């Protein structure tokens, strides 16, 4: 731990300030020769790990069907009221499916609660973090933009099963 100085403790050399400047420049020189701390973002992309909570997506099985059974838990828990689900019945094995599943990405706060409560592993926080819209309508993601093949979500799903 370095010594602490009050005004009284400062010696003539400290008050002269020149040695302090030299010391400070020395540290600056050290920092200049150190590793670079920044990322050249658009050229160099940040690659998230499995723990990362990106934008929520709906998992799609290999046969093109969604896993979601439209139970509405995600919509119920969402603190930002971003999710809207409308359920319907079908002849398929799972009997229920969402006719309409919308996430308003202007409201979403990426808290991951929807994923936390989902009993079907259907809504998953992906590793996607680039979200750009030029109008409000575009920000409401329907099923067409939410459905993502399970393979793409593998790191996150593995993380969920192992660590959650």
């Amino acid at each position: 731990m370095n010594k602490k100085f009050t005004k009284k403790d400062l010696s003539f050399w400290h008050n002269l300030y020149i040695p302090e400047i030299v010391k400070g420049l020395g540290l600056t020189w050290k920092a200049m020769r150190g590793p670079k701390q920044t990322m050249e973002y658009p050229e160099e992309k940040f690659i998230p790990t499995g723990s990362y909570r990106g934008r929520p997506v709906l998992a799609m099985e290999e046969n093109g069907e969604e896993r979601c059974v439209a139970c509405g838990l995600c919509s119920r828990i969402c603190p930002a009221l971003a999710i809207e689900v409308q359920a319907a019945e079908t002849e398929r094995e799972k009997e229920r499916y969402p006719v309409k599943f919308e996430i308003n990405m202007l409201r979403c706060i990426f808290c991951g609660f929807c994923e936390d409560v989902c009993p079907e592993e259907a809504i998953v926080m992906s590793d996607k973090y680039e979200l750009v819209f030029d109008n409000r309508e575009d920000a409401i993601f329907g099923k067409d933009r939410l459905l993502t093949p399970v393979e793409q979500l593998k790191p996150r799903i593995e993380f969920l099963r192992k660590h959650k």
Partner: protein
Amino acid sequence: MDQVIDNDLTYSRAVEALKKYAVETDDPLDNEMVLNMGPQHPATHGVLRLLLSLDGETVTNCVPMLGYLHRGYEKMAEDMNYYDYIPHTDRLDYLAPPSNNVAFVLAVEKLLGIEIPRRASYIRMINSELARIASHLVAIGAMVMDAGAMTVFLWCFREREKIQELYDLIMGARFTTSYTRIGGVSGDITDEAQAGILEFLDQFPETLDDLEKLLNANRIFVQRTDGVGVISAEDAIDLGVSGPNLRASGVEHDIRRAEPYLFYNEMDFKIPTYSNGDSLARYWVRMDEMRESIKIIRQAMEMMPFGDIMANSPKKAIPRKVEIYSKMEELINDFMLTNFGAEPPVGEVYHAVENPKGELGFHIVSRGEGHPWKMKIKSPSATNLQALPHLVNGHMISDVVVILGSLDPVMGEADK
């Protein structure tokens, strides 16, 4: 100095109060000028507005006006279940979100009477201490930048960036973490994250040394802060100042020691205390606290046992994901908890933790429903700001920003 300052004053009433003060203090020529500092002033750490009464360049009185970032968080809590409220606590003291999560969740757990697994407690402790380091780094960086040094600010943010990358690995988000859950934590800490924390702890003391080399004997910094904004121990206690600001005045009070929560009673750490009570002492306390936090994290990493991260208490804590997928009972619990929330018994509870800024407490009144009937947040920034008028009197305008920086308020928390 002895004036009672009412924070609910509207602007005109505040100006009137200052004018009345000018008359009372024998200033018939009205030499004093009222200067409006903020809410858009870059040195007020957010949207704090100060009305300064000036005699030349000397501050004679000051009225802080809070409330520009008021989002009604206490009222909102009455309308949402306990689980839903966790992300909102991130946005109180947004420089230390994991710490706020822990504070809120501990209060709720006290109300519910849940015993949480040891591993979860240790993970919470590690996160809280990481948050403390991150918060103090910003506090020091901003304070020193207010005093005129840019390098320290950049170096502090460089280190904070590393902590945020760790947040990303542990909790999944860099800023609004929403990681702690009622009954435990949302996910286990990965090996990668643990290695990352240790790596950070290994190199961090060196950076602290560098920062101290730049600042401790720096004539300009010492002269700007030594003896500036002095508050005595008695005044600090009377005004409700808490956290590092209180310890800089010589009061050795730390809730981690006074009323240990989690496993702080098992940790070996010192409580840095200085008796000067000035801005310089507040900087020293923060510097030393970061070193103590390193010690705590290291001990917690060593002592952390393997095991569950979520309490096994149906109807109170959400079960683990794998169990929800495969077991009926857990699935039903998941539905019940999501729809109705954890329903605590009728009663009141207050639980406070030592946040980086000071004592953050949640007072929850429950009527047996899934949401609080009333919730009061005791936020350290708001109470610390009450001391500001007493600190700035008699100093120059340029000292106001340094004193404010040394108090380290976060307006998200002060205005709630």
